[in-house]
């Protein structure tokens, strides 16, 4: 199993570094690219956890669509690319850092306390459940109604976005 551990650590470190990049980068386009790394890392983690369908969806939607949207947004708002340090940050940076670290501390303590010693066992059943067929089956049987609701939500978001962004 050591291969999985190694893979995890590599992915995890990459994601952690990239995520710091997202929130600390002075260049907004770099930030978006760092985000791609984080998202791809997440997809890799999904594969590690035998959730292949979700992993592909992650890649398609996040990296393929969402990041592109971000880039559009960056261009449309003429965000500054590179320049003064702190130009992209506001005045409560230190407060934010303290709070984030504090929350992290609490969360870690909680997690260690609650889930310490629990292990994920990779079995055939797990592999089976990650397959697209199983996921699709569940999605369109058990979760059909939420699925439809989400589709309505998407439609609403679509209309909302158009209404908001339209020049008139």
């Amino acid at each position, binding site marked *: 199993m050591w291969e999985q551990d190694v893979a995890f650590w590599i992915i995890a470190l990459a994601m952690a570094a990239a995520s710091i990049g997202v929130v600390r980068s002075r260049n907004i386009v770099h930030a978006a690219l760092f985000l791609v790394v984080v998202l791809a890392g997440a997809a890799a983690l999904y594969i590690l956890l035998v959730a292949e369908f979700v992993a592909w969806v992650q890649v398609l939607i996040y990296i393929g669509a969402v990041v592109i949207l971000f880039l559009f947004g960056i261009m449309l708002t003429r965000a500054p690319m590179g320049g003064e340090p702190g130009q992209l940050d506001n005045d409560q940076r230190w407060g934010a850092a303290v709070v984030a670290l504090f929350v992290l501390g609490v969360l870690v303590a909680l997690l260690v306390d609650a889930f310490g010693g629990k292990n994920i066992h990779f079995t055939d059943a797990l592999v089976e459940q990650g397959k697209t067929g199983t996921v699709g089956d569940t999605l369109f049987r058990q979760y059909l109604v939420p699925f439809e609701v989400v589709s309505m939500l998407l439609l609403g978001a679509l209309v909302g976005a158009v209404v908001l*962004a339209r*020049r008139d």
Partner: protein
Amino acid sequence: MELNYFLILSAFLFCVGVYGVLARKNGVLVLMSVELMLNAVSINLIAFSALNHSVSGQIFALFVITIAAAEVGVGLAIVLLIYRNLKSPDLDKIDELKG
């Protein structure tokens, strides 16, 4: 594999996201940070799905992804609007609610 690997990684991503949301001035960057937080949640969901051998976690992750897409769409529209009105995407310029 230890469950906590994934959970702690996700907690870290989440807190980085929190930092980003709190400290970034640019609207687009705030939205990106929100994406970080959402991803952290998704990782949690998948990890628990693997732990409990239940496919529901994956479904939820799918929903999270969908909703994230919607959120980004609307969020960016709002940022655009702010930019158009204030000639800047910076969020600390909006303080109409100031008491």
